[in-house]
Structure formats: C-alpha cells, structure tokens
C-alpha cells in the first residue's frame, strides 16, 4: 500500500517535471502525440458521453416531473435538471464513461507495452517513458474530460427539454429562461472543477496501473480491472469531498 502511494506520488512528480521543467531543458512533449490522444479520448468518446448525458437528462426530467406534479410544481423541472446535471451528474457520469472507454484502454495499452518489452526498449534508447507515453495522455485527458463534461451538460439539458416540451407542454423559450435563472455560473464552474480533478485521478491511476503490469496477458487483465475499480472509487470519494467543499464554502 505504501509502495503504491509512493509510486503514485513519484509518477505525479515526473509528470510535473516533464510538463514544466523538461521544456526548459530542451525536451519537449510532442504536440502531435497530445492531439492524437485528444482525438482518441475526447472526440471518439463523444457519442457515448452524449448518449449517457441525454438519457440522464430524460430520466431526471421524468422522475422530477412525477414527484413535482404532486405539489403542482412541474414548472421547477428545468431547475432540477439544470442544477443536478451541472453540479453532480454531468461530471460524474461523463467520468464513468471515460473511465470505461479511455482509462481501461490506457492501462491495457501501457500494460501490453510493458509486457512486450516496449517500455524497456524506450528506456534503453534514453527515451523517458513518462515523457513519451504518460504526459501526452495526461494533457489530453486534462483537456478533454472537462470539454466532454461541458458538452454532456448541454446534451443532458436537451434531454430535459424533450420531456418538458413534449410531455409537460412547456415552451422552449420558457425552458431556456428557467434554466438560466436556476443554473448559476458557479454550478457550471463547480462541475468543471470536479471534472478536472476526475481527469487527473483517472489518467494517473490508469497510467500507474499500466506501467506496473507484470505477468503477461493475465497481468494486463488484472491491471485493467484494478485500474477501472480504483478510478471509480477515487472519483466517487473525490466527488463527495468536492461536493462537501462547495456546500460548506
């Protein structure tokens, strides 16, 4: 356990070094590698993230409408959708999608490279694996998860609109106006801040699990499972802490 924490801190230290100090020593991270990872982690995850957010928007609006109708307060459905998605469900569910899609892929990919002696070969060629493999993925994740979250937020609210418009006979202008009254910038920012933290947790955990693989194909499988489980756990804990932070301060 302490060894895992030490490796985790050391990995973070190395990422920090290659991001901020490496460039001054003439060893840059290749922009093309970062862009490539951004496409894989962000652009290609968009359909799945959109579908998840849409379904959450739809269900939230339906569940909310059912409960609020009893008090004759269906007009507050947009408020419910906006605040819940912006603050809580948007970042969390997009995070889960990205863990399943990209976190696992990163672990499996790095793990297979470890098993196939590719990481060792890089080291022997004086190419630092953290600079070459981890930092591009780190940057891509840190940019793309918040971007996906913001997109997911809009699509979730679109889901809310579908229910409000077609089932509750609310007009589009009214829906948007209620959204803007209910959702404050701080709601959006708190969600985006969360997604930055999630991105950092997901990518560092996935990379550490991948680079630590030993024992062939079975080891890659084990590392991938543990990476997904640990990422989700870490994300939920961080989510609770951050929600508490925004609640009390």
């Amino acid at each position, binding site marked *: 356990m302490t060894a895992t924490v030490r490796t985790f801190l050391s990995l973070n230290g190395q990422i920090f070094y290659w991001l901020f100090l490496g460039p001054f020593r003439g060893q840059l991270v290749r922009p093309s590698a970062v862009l490539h990872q951004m496409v894989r982690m962000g652009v290609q995850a968009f359909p799945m993230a959109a579908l998840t957010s849409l379904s959450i928007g739809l269900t939230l609006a339906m569940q909310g409408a059912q409960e609020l109708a009893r008090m004759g307060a269906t007009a507050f459905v947009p408020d419910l959708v906006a605040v819940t998605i912006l603050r809580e469900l948007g970042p969390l569910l997009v995070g889960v999608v990205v863990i399943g899609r990209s976190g696992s892929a990163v672990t499996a990919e790095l793990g297979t490279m470890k098993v196939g*002696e*590719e990481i*060792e070969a890089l*080291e*022997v*060629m*004086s*190419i*630092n694996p953290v600079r*070459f493999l981890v930092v591009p993925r780190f940057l891509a994740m840190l940019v793309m998860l918040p971007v996906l979250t913001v997109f997911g937020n809009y699509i979730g609210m679109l889901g809310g609109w579908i229910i409000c418009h077609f089932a509750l006979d609310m007009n589009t202008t009214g829906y948007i106006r209620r959204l803007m009254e209910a959702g404050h910038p701080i709601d959006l920012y708190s969600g985006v801040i969360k997604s930055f933290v999630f991105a950092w947790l997901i990518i560092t955990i996935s990379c550490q699990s991948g680079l630590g693989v030993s024992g062939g194909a079975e080891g890659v499988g084990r590392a991938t499972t543990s990476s997904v489980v640990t990422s989700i756990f870490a994300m939920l804990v961080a989510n609770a802490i951050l929600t508490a932070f925004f609640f009390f301060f």
Partner: protein
Amino acid sequence: MPVIEVRDLIKKFGPRTVLNGVTFSVEKGETVVIMGGSGCGKSTVLRHIIGSMKPTSGSIKLFGEEITTMPDRQLEKVRLRFGMNFQFGALLQSLTVGENVALPLLENSSVSPEIVDLIVKMKLELVGLTGFENLKPSEISGGMRKRVGLARAVALDPELLFSDEPTSGLDPIMTAVIDELTLDLTRKLHMTAVIVTHDMVSAFRIANKMIVLGAGKRAGTIIAQGTPDDIRHHPDPEVQQFINGRPDGPVPLKLSPEDYIDKLLGHERQKGVDY
C-alpha cells in the same frame, strides 16, 4: 581502458541465484559472443549491462563509468552511446517500421526530418527491409521484426552494440546477411559488439572473443572464455558438448531412472522399497 568491465556480478531472484560471480571485460572493437544453454542467464547478463536490471552485488563499468549506482539522468547519457537489439525486437506496435527506426533519431538527435527519412531508408536497406517502412510491426514476420530491431539499434551509429539472439528464427541466408552486417559494423566502423546467441555457426563466424556460461551446478558462472580457437579446443567437456551440440554429456538431457522416480514421487521414496 576496456569498454565494458563486469566484476563479480551476482543476481538473485528470491532464493534463486541466476548469476553467480560473472567477471569479464570487453575491449574496444571486440566482438564478444556470450553462449550458453537456455535459461543459463545470458540475457540477464545483457540486461544488467544495459542498466535495466540492478545486480544484487558486483560492479559494471561502461566506458569506465560505474552504472549500477548511477542516477537515471546520467544513465540516459551513457545509453545514448550504445544500441540494443532485443530478442523479440521490442518494436513499438503503435508505430510503423519506419517510425520505429526513426524514433531514436527524432528523440535524441537534432537531425532534420528529411535527413531522418534518408537515414531510416539506409538503415532498413542494411538489414534487407527496403520498402517495408509503412508496415506495422504486427504485419511483418518475427524474423523481420528482429531485423528492424537491429536497424533501430544502429540508427544513431552507436559505439557499442548489444544484440540478444539476433539470428534465431532467421533463415540461413538472412543469418549470413546479419552476420556479415555485424562484421562490417565491427571491422569497418570499429563498433564494439556484445552478442548473445545459441547459433554456433554464426558465433564462430563473427566472434573474436567468446564467453560460455555453464549449466546445471555451474549455472550463472563463466566456464570458459577466450578466442574462438581457445573455445574450440577447450578441455572442459561441457563446453565441447555445447559447441558440438551433443545430446548427452556433462549436461544430462534425461534423468537417471532413480532420479526420475524421485522426481515423479516427490522425493518420498523410501530406501529398500522396490518399484
């Protein structure tokens, strides 16, 4: 000053001693072949010299610098001076053959991309793989992957070349081509080479110094070293068995009937009981 100096190298994996006091040195321009049966620790010796494994005890000097205690950043500088050809190529599967060979040039030199392209073509031509630049490692055969690994190892024209079984799995013609290439690199460009191999024909073709690692009770120790002629006429019967490829000798192929029964029954056989 020797290029490589290995002294009393000991490596233990838990209770198992894999290397037990290996000592040898390699002078500039020499081609040293390390031989020995499967699992005798040849690749482990190589892994220690390139710094990817740390010994339990002992010293390894490359170009006169102790690498076993060296910090990583300094080790990176030493590593720029040698090339390593891995047993299975260890190519990056996500890159094409050409990109793999270009990798050390792009990452560790300031050569312009056009020149890199030219060097890649030249290095691939050396190993007989012209025209394969745009294929992925998964689309070529194991022997070809190995040759790409060699091209990548010599991409930066290193002073020192390590090769782990460069010719196993290659056809006889390709084996001769790779041997010829190694000879060219060492004789004409004065590169120093350390090659691990099982292949006796190619070993005697390229070596000017040979090291034989023992098996069985003498596993992990050097049982003979010297010029190819020394080794050919070495009195040790295990060396003779190895270079002549005889199934029986000091290294037994099969267990004796008693040992066999012992192993089968898990050492529980009692004396005097007849089986």
